[in-house]
């Protein structure tokens, strides 16, 4: 280990987030240049800065690259089955409403195999924060087409280009009833961290889509070098809070809108249940 400052050449370096990660499992499995680590780091920073009781905070993941998030956080954490992070988290939250529940997973997990669970949790307004690392592909299995893969993008299962169109995730979240909806890229780390903190502190179903590069399995096939992707994030995005969710298609040929789009109040699932069903 090397410190660049002679004054601080202490033998044991300690990253400010080391208390929140399982350091014995680091380095993690994410590839060089993968954005998941940055989103994960941002999420941990937000958890810390939000001031919530971390002992009562859990992270739930599904399957996939970002699904490994739960395995690195030094909190109660659950790495569930593919697509089922949200219903598992629903049981956790309803079983103990004191828990702060953060779902950290990927686009394939949350919106293809788990799409049905997402819309229903949003409809019920279950008090949880869902962070979706959207890398536009199935990274873990080697880069197959996802429900978020852009039209005509090349993947191992769409070698001549994706014939289908991707979901507009914030639109889907808004239409399903989410009370907080936002999108950032992993390059917009400060905004993302603030946004995750807001989402964690907000009661109700919060959804944050975070664009993150998959250089190994998406970028490579679509002639997009890691730094190219980040440059797109910098040059081809525009922050427009409260934008119409219908305008949020991701097309880097044009500009991609980032920001906080929905932030409204609605009774949560538990509040409604207590009010409606707990009548003796």
């Amino acid at each position, binding site marked *: 280990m090397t410190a660049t400052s002679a004054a601080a050449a202490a033998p044991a370096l300690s990253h400010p987030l080391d208390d929140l990660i399982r350091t014995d499992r680091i380095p993690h499995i994410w590839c060089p240049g993968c954005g998941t680590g940055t989103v994960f780091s*941002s999420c941990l920073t937000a958890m810390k800065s939000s001031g919530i009781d971390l002992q009562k905070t859990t992270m739930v993941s599904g399957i996939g690259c970002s699904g490994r998030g739960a395995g690195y956080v030094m909190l109660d954490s659950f790495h569930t089955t593919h697509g089922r992070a949200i219903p598992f988290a629903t049981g956790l939250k309803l079983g103990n409403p004191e828990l702060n529940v953060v779902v950290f997973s990927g686009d394939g997990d949350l919106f293809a195999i788990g799409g049905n669970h997402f819309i229903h949790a949003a409809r019920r307004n279950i008090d949880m924060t869902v962070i979706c690392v959207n890398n536009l592909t199935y990274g873990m299995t080697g880069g197959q087409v996802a429900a978020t893969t852009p039209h005509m993008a090349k993947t191992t299962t769409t070698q001549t280009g994706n014939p289908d169109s991707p979901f507009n995730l914030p639109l889907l979240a808004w239409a399903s009833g989410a009370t907080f909806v936002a999108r950032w890229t992993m390059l917009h780390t400060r905004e993302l961290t603030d946004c995750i903190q807001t989402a964690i502190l907000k009661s109700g179903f919060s959804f944050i889509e975070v664009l993150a590069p998959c250089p190994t399995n998406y970028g490579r096939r679509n002639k997009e070098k890691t730094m190219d992707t980040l440059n797109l994030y*910098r040059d081809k995005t525009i922050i427009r809070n409260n934008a119409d969710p219908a305008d949020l298609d991701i097309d880097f040929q044009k500009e991609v809108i980032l920001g906080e789009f929905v932030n409204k109040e609605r009774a949560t699932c538990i509040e409604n249940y207590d009010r409606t069903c707990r009548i003796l």
Partner: protein
Amino acid sequence: MKYWRVPFDSDVIEITKGNVFIIDDRCKGCGYCIEFCPRSILAFSTRFNKKGYHPPEALKPDECVNCHYCEIICPEFAIYSVEADQQQP
């Protein structure tokens, strides 16, 4: 150096100083910290870490302003900065 935005009062505000620390063996050499350091003080080193990557090094350590951007963009928990007058705990 490309700035995203330049504050109007950038000439007058007092700038903090920082020390950058790099945990070599966590680095996977993505280069994000190097590319996006607003002061461009970082560069790939010539040394190899355990996994065979070139971790960054601070070429101009005195120019670190402790903005923490390297720390928060790093996907690997491999780099961070602390205020210059603080000692590493």
